[in-house]
């Protein structure tokens, strides 16, 4: 005969067993009728339960004033009203916060845009806009005295020495065009779109009347096309430079030319050169994949790569006459390291090569200027910059110029290149 467990005995005692388990309730009832031990346990459990209840009754409020329900309900309505006010206030506060955040964001965007534009602009007095730190370092080549034999085209004549022209020259000198990082690409698209609009507006409004040459108009048209093309393929533009030739003619001759610009010479010829330089970046993006051996053969030097990083691609520039190789390696972070390598004879010799004389040479000229400047000091690192999360280093190594670009901090890229072979 199975006796009743304590739990069921108390559940039976409390009148809960029937609702929990009717079968067990019936069994306990039958068992208690015939089992004296269990009946004694049942009585003991009842005494314990009653004693417990008695003990607990000693710990309770002696007297409770039960407030009328209406009073409690009134308290609720007051609380609801307060809550409603609070909720409304909170909603307004949220809306205000969002508006404020948007306003701050917009202001920050404007400031950032201005700072980007200032990188390529000259102030009204004709003096270069002051820069600090690394920016100054980056800009130095343009302000340095030009080594003899290096031909730098004047930005424009005095009448058209607009900021846009300088910017155009700068944009054209970006060589090789770095691949945009994921974060930078949308921004560049946006800038390119703005530039395109600006170019179109300025071009339509004041095209040509102050320019004497026909070629300049051609340059303007090409520049507009260039801006539109950049909007479609933003990888080419590295910085926010206003569309150069398009902006140039519209500017009144209020701003004197920068110090290094030889003003007022061979306008048509320069305009043509400039126009060609502008058209060039589109071609420079053409890279043809090749075998490493072939690349090294064309380059006449071993390809520089960072050991331990998988090589993503090896390409040769299809547009450049001089062999320019590009090696892309995948970083551990998933980003791409780009090493653009080209032969670099002595700076003077670079200037003399036909490649430099052609429009694309704008970039090579800049490198040559930098090489000339820093090689004298025996430095191997020629230039370093860090913009929009992308570090760029220009190195001279074993007779080669190497431009390394990667979405890394500058120091990391530098350390990485030490391991390059």
């Amino acid at each position: 005969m199975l006796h009743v467990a304590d739990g069921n005995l108390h559940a039976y005692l409390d009148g809960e067993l029937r609702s929990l388990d009717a079968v067990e309730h019936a069994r306990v009832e039958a068992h208690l009728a015939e089992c004296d031990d269990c009946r004694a346990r049942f009585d003991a459990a009842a005494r314990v339960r009653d004693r417990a209840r008695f003990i607990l009754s000693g710990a309770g409020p002696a007297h409770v004033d039960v407030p009328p329900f209406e009073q409690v309900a009134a308290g609720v309505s007051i609380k609801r009203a307060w809550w409603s006010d609070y909720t409304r206030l909170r909603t307004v506060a949220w809306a205000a916060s969002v508006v404020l955040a948007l306003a701050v964001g917009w202001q920050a965007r404007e400031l950032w845009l201005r700072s980007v534009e200032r990188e390529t602009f000259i102030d009204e007095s004709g003096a270069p806009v002051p820069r600090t730190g690394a920016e100054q370092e980056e800009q130095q080549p343009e302000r340095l005295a030009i080594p003899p034999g290096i031909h730098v085209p004047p930005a424009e004549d005095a009448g058209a020495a607009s900021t846009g022209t300088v910017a155009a020259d700068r944009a054209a000198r970006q060589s090789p065009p770095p691949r945009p990082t994921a974060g930078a690409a949308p921004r560049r698209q946006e800038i390119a779109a703005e530039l395109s609009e600006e170019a179109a507006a300025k071009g339509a409004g004041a095209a040509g009347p102050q320019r004497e040459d026909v070629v300049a108009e051609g340059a303007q048209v090409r520049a507009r096309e260039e801006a539109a093309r950049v909007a479609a393929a933003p990888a080419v533009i590295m910085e926010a430079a206003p569309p150069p030739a398009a902006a140039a003619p519209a500017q009144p001759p209020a701003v004197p030319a920068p110090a290094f610009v030889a003003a007022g010479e061979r306008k048509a010829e320069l305009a043509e050169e400039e126009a060609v330089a502008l058209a060039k970046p589109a071609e420079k993006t053409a890279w043809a994949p090749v075998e490493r051996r072939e690349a090294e053969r064309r380059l006449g030097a071993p390809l520089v790569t960072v050991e331990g990083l998988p090589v993503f691609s090896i390409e040769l520039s299809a547009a450049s006459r001089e062999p320019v190789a590009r090696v892309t390696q995948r970083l551990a972070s998933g980003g791409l390291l780009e090493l653009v390598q080209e032969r670099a004879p002595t700076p003077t010799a670079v200037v003399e090569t036909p490649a430099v004389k052609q429009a694309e040479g704008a970039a090579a000229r800049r490198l040559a200027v930098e090489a000339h400047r820093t090689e004298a000091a025996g430095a191997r690192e020629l230039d370093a910059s860090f913009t929009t999360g992308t570090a760029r280093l220009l190195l001279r190594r074993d007779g080669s110029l190497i431009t390394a670009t990667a979405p890394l901090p500058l120091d990391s890229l530098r350390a990485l290149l030490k391991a390059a072979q």
Partner: protein
Amino acid sequence: MSLDWAEVYRSTFLDLVRFLHRKVWDADRAQELAQEAFVRALSQTGRRPDNPRAWLFRVAANLAKDEARLVIRRKKHLALLKVEAETEPAVEPELLQTDERAAREEAVRQALAQLGERDREALLLWDAGLSYREIAEHTGLALGAIGTTLARARARLVEAYSALEAKHAARG
């Protein structure tokens, strides 16, 4: 069918106050918290609890927990002040209980303190009139375990209280 909160209030308020009293050990505070539980219940627009009584006890238990935390913080703060002021050692609370009812309440409090938390909770809920099913829902215990839990809790309470009584009698 709309819920008649007035009826729930009438049938539950006293039980709720008693339940809360054994949690916060302060009659006025227990009453305030019971009212607060109802205020919260009535503020729940668009939400109708399946078991209003059980829901109220759950809210009340949470309020009591918050209250206990507050009391602990206050005690800590007072303890710090006491150390800073270097006052005389505190008088044992039980010695402050002058009348018989207060002494009895203190004994119950001490006896309940000897129970496990779940046993104590189940016992107080049962004493407040909740069914086994409601107690299970409230405590998270299995329905079949409530009888056993209550059996153990009752026996432990009686035993602890009797021991305290004997101790008190021995002191004279």
